[in-house]
């Protein structure tokens, strides 16, 4: 009887052999038809990237530059195609951003360049590319990763946008703080959010869903931090812009509500170990606007305190909040014109843009710090669910 002797792990060289004619099938099964929520949910993070790289290694090993170019071009075009088709699906975009970054890291880690080999094991060093220098293709992949990142930000923005004003400003997270409406009428008490109303909790749950998916996809932690910082910037900017345009948002109690909501967002960052992401700092203009709603606004000393405190707000923004400020009851006065004039005089030497609103569509430049993998390529096996039986593990 024939005996099937399994090859030991050490016999594998960490490559997948494939025929040139199978390249189309490879891209189809691994990129175009792979569903992140389907079979991909059980894959090791970055598996598509490792498989593609191991195929590339084989083409390099054969010293076949046409095969190398063809695979790289097909891979890049395949990723672009799926992102064009399903570019409004957060999971798809997150999945391919993670895999594109992993592919880029592989190209560096196994480039043979000393700077990228510091953390390699001896075995990993044996897997470096033999014949070709792909530095120019790394640049193309980096450009692709930037495009995918920007697409990810847009998708996340579109999901969060409907929640922000409702969750950060309109819904009162701390019930009972606002005993009366700014107009002086008493509000009816309500312990449940109206149906269809987003609350702060909606925003926190959505942020958690985003974070969980990115982690499952094996997105680089440094990249996750940049994504979170961008989301917090959007939340802060949209909230502040709304506040600057609405009189009913400029009261002491609204300031209290905003400060509480911001503290909950900070708590979320702490819980996810994201305090070093820079996300909290993006909320500073909103935090200061909320403080401005709560501080005294009468004397020269008050004016000096406001000018020192509001270093993240422009003069136009400070003046707007003061003009919109609405007392909660008939005993409190509106901010006097003299007071506002005092503020303007104190701040006249500031060199700043006269723009009132923040640019909520601004996207911070992204970087992809090198993140080598500890995985050794010869250990990688392809699950049958990926329908890649035409690849031979070498």
């Amino acid at each position, binding site marked *: 009887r024939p005996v099937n002797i399994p090859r030991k792990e050490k016999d594998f060289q960490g490559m997948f052999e494939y025929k040139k004619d199978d390249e189309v099938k490879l891209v189809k099964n691994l990129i175009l038809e792979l569903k992140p929520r389907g079979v991909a949910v059980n894959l090791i993070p970055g598996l598509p990237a490792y498989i593609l790289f191991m195929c590339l290694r084989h083409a390099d090993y054969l010293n076949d*530059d046409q095969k190398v170019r063809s695979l790289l071009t097909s891979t*890049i*075009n395949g990723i672009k195609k799926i992102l064009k088709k399903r570019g409004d699906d957060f999971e798809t975009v997150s999945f391919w951003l993670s895999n594109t970054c992993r592919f880029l890291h592989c190209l560096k880690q196994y480039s*043979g360049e000393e700077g990228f080999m510091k953390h390699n094991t001896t075995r990993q060093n044996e897997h470096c590319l*033999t014949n070709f220098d*792909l530095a*120019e*293709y790394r640049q*193309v992949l980096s*450009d692709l990763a930037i495009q995918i990142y920007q697409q990810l930000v847009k998708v996340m923005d579109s999901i969060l946008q409907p929640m922000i004003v409702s969750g950060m400003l309109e819904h009162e997270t701390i019930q009972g703080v606002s005993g009366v409406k700014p107009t002086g009428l008493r509000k009816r008490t309500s312990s449940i959010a109206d149906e269809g109303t987003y609350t702060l909790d909606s925003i926190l749950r959505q942020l958690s869903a985003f974070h969980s998916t990115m982690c499952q996809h094996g997105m680089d932690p440094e990249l996750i931090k940049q994504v979170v910082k961008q989301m917090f910037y959007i939340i802060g900017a949209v909230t502040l812009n709304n506040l600057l345009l609405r009189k009913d948002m400029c009261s002491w109690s609204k300031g209290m509500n905003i400060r509480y909501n911001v503290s909950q967002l900070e708590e979320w960052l702490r819980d996810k170990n994201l305090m070093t992401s820079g996300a909290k700092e993006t909320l500073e203009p909103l935090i200061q606007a909320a403080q401005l709603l709560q501080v005294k606004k009468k004397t020269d000393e008050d004016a000096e305190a406001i000018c020192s405190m509001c270093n993240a707000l422009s003069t136009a923004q400070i003046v707007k909040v003061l003009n919109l400020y609405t007392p909660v009851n008939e005993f409190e006065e509106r901010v006097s014109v003299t007071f506002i004039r005092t503020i303007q005089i104190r701040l006249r030497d500031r060199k700043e843009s006269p723009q009132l609103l923040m640019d909520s569509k601004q996207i911070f430049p992204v970087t992809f710090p090198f993140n080598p993998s500890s995985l050794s390529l010869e250990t990688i096996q392809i699950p049958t669910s990926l329908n890649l039986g035409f690849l031979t593990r070498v």
Partner: protein
Amino acid sequence: RPPPQRPRVLLKAPTLAEMEEMNISEEEESP
């Protein structure tokens, strides 16, 4: 001692935009 590694050949790459243009023209040509 293993033999010294011969220098790797730099593969020139098109830009991302050029790759997309090549891909569009290939798709238009194919039936």
